[in-house]
C-alpha cells in the first residue's frame, strides 16, 4: 500500500501531459472531421528534433520548445491543405480517403524515422533530469522528479493557452463553429481552409513539443509513435470523440492506468489493460465516459 500515493502522483503527472496531446488531437478531429493516424509520429519527430538539437548545441531541450513548436506548426500548416483537398474530393468516398491518407502518412513517417534514426532507444538529457522533490508526511512518501513537475507546468500552460484561444478569441469562435457545422460555418464567413490549417498546425506543433517532454521523462525511439497513437485514441474515445471537456479526465485515467501497471503489475501488460478498457467503454458507452461524443 505504501506505493499507492507514488503511483497516483506519477499517474496524475503523466496524465497531465497526455491532456495536451489529446486536446489538440480532438480539436483537429472536431474541425477537420478526420482522424490523424500520424499523431504518434508527430510526437516521435518532435522528440527526435529535441534530441538532436540538444546534442548539437548542448543546450537544454526545454529551451527549444518554442523553436520546435514554430517549426512543426509550419510543417502542419503546409501539409493540411493536402488533407483538406483529399477530404473535399468528389471522387470516391472523401471521408474514407482522408483516413487512408493519414494512415499512409503514418507509415511513411515511421519508415522515414527508422531509416534516419535506426532502431535505438534513447532519452533526452535535461537539467531537470536529475533533481527531485521528496514529500514525506503523515507516513506517506512520494518522490516527484523535477522533470515531471516541469511537464505538469507545461501541460497546464498549454491547456490554458488552448482554453483561452478557443473561448476568448474570434479565431476560437470560428473553430468552434466549424466543429459544430462545417458547411454552415463556411456560409457564415469562417474560412474553413485557413482555420483548418491553423488548427492542424497548432496540433502538430503541440504534439511535437510534447514529444520532447516525453523524451525527457521516458525515452525516445523511432517506433515510439505507435504507442502514443494508441494513447491519443484511447483518450479521445474515452472522452467522447470531439468532446474536449472530457479529455482531461480520460487523460488522467490513462496516466493512472499506466503508473499503476508500472508499479504493481507487469509494465508490458499496460497496453493490454488500455485495450481492455477501450473495448469495455466502446461496448457499454460508445460515445465516451460522458456520453457526449459524436
Amino acid at each position, binding site marked *: 500500500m505504501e506505493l499507492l500515493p507514488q503511483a497516483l502522483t506519477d499517474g496524475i503527472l503523466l496524465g497531465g501531459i497526455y491532456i495536451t496531446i489529446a486536446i489538440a488531437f480532438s480539436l483537429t*478531429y472536431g474541425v477537420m472531421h*478526420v*482522424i490523424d*493516424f500520424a499523431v504518434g509520429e508527430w510526437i516521435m519527430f518532435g522528440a527526435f528534433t529535441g534530441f538532436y538539437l540538444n546534442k548539437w548545441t548542448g543546450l537544454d531541450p526545454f529551451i527549444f520548445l518554442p523553436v520546435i513548436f514554430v517549426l512543426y506548426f509550419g510543417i502542419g500548416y503546409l501539409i493540411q491543405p*493536402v488533407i483538406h*483537398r*483529399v477530404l473535399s*474530393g*468528389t*471522387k*470516391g*468516398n472523401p*471521408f*474514407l*480517403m482522408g*483516413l*487512408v*491518407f493519414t*494512415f*499512409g*502518412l*503514418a*507509415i*511513411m*513517417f*515511421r*519508415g*522515414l524515422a*527508422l*531509416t534516419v534514426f535506426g532502431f535505438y532507444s534513447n532519452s533526452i538529457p535535461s537539467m531537470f533530469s536529475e533533481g527531485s522533490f521528496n514529500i514525506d508526511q503523515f507516513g506517506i512518501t512520494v518522490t516527484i522528479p523535477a522533470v515531471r513537475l516541469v511537464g505538469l507546468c507545461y501541460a497546464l500552460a498549454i491547456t490554458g493557452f488552448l482554453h483561452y484561444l478557443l473561448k476568448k478569441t474570434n479565431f476560437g469562435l470560428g473553430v468552434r463553429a466549424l466543429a459544430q*457545422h*462545417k*458547411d*454552415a460555418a*463556411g*456560409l457564415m464567413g469562417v474560412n474553413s481552409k485557413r482555420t483548418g490549417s491553423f488548427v492542424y498546425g497548432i496540433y502538430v506543433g503541440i504534439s511535437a513539443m510534447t514529444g520532447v517532454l516525453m523524451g525527457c521523462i521516458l525515452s525516445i525511439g523511432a517506433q515510439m509513435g*505507435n504507442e502514443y497513437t*494508441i494513447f491519443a*485514441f*484511447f483518450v479521445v*474515445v474515452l472522452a467522447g*470523440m470531439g468532446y474536449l471537456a472530457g479529455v482531461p479526465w480520460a487523460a488522467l485515467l490513462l496516466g493512472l492506468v499506466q503508473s499503476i501497471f508500472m508499479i504493481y503489475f*507487469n509494465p*508490458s*501488460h499496460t*497496453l*493490454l489493460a488500455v*485495450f481492455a478498457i*477501450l*473495448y469495455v467503454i*466502446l*461496448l457499454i458507452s*460508445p460515445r465516451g465516459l460522458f456520453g457526449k461524443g*459524436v
Partner: protein
Amino acid sequence: MKTTNSRGPAILGILVAALLILPLVVHDTFVLRVLTEGIMWIGLAIAFDVIAGYTGYLNFGHGAFFGIGAYTIAILMMQANLPFWAALPAGGLAAGVVALIAGIPTLRLKGAYFAIATWALSRAIQQLALNVEFTGGPDGMRLNAFLNPQFFYYLMLITVGLTFLILWYLLERAPFGLKLKAIREDEEGAKALGLNPTKLKMQAFILSALPTGILGGIYAYWITFIDPSSTLGDLVSDQAVVMVVFGGMGTLFGPALGALLIFAFKTIFWAYLSDFQLLYLIILGALIAVSVIFIPNGLWGTLFKRKAAPPRREEPALTAVVAPEEGN
C-alpha cells in the same frame, strides 16, 4: 448488368489454366514460393476489400486476422496435436469469432471508430501473443515442416480461387453486394429500405475475416515459423491497405491487381535492395498518399472507368447544410 466485356472470362480462363499447369513446368522452388505468396496476397487483398471497399469501413488491423489464423493452427497442431486439415477450419473460425467480438461495439458507430478500433485490436493481439505462454511469446512458434512446395502452391491457389468465386458471387451477383454498397453510400437511407446496417456490416466483417484466417493458417504451416513481430506485425495490415487503395476499392479485380503489382515490387525490391528494406515502408506510405490524391478510384477504377459515373453536379455544401440530424 454487364460489368465485364466478353473477353474478360476468356482471359480469366486462360490465366487460371496457366496457373494450374505452372508447377508441372516450373520446378524452381524460389519461383514457386514467390507465386504461392503472390496468390496469398491476392486472397488477403480481396478479403480486405469486402469490408473496406464494398461496405466503406476501413479495417486497419487486417493483419490481426491473418495472425489469429496462423496462431490458431500452430497452437492446435503443435499443442493439441491436431492434423492440419482439422486445424485449418478452426483458423478461419477463430478469425471470424474475433471479428464478431470486435465488431459488436464498433460497427454500430461511425467508421472512424471502426478504423481506430481495428488498428488498436491488431496492436492488442500482438501484445497478447508477446505476453502469454502458449504462443511462445516473442520467440514465436515452430511447426513441423512439411516440405512440399507444390502442395502449398495448389492449396493456396484453390483457397484463393474459391474465395474469389464465393466473394464474386456474393458481392457482384447476389443481393448481398448491392446491400453492402447501399450501406456504404448512405447508412441512414438504407434503413428506410429495410436494410439492417449493423447486421449487414457484421456479416461483411466476418466474411472478410474468415478467409483471412484460413490463409494465415496455410501460411503458418507453409512457412513453419511464426512470431509476433512478423506474423502479427503492422506490415501485413499496411500492405493490405496499399494493395487495395492502389489497386482500386470496391471491386474484386482492383485489389487483385494491386496485390500482384505491390507484391511483385516487394519481391524485386527485397531481392536487389535488401539493404534498404526500411525504404520499402516509406514507399508503401507514399504510395498510399499519392494514390489517394491522384487516383482515388485506384488503378483498376481509373483504367477501366465505369460508364455511368459522371461527376456530382449538385453543390455539396448547400445540400449538407439542410441535412437533418442523424438520429441520436
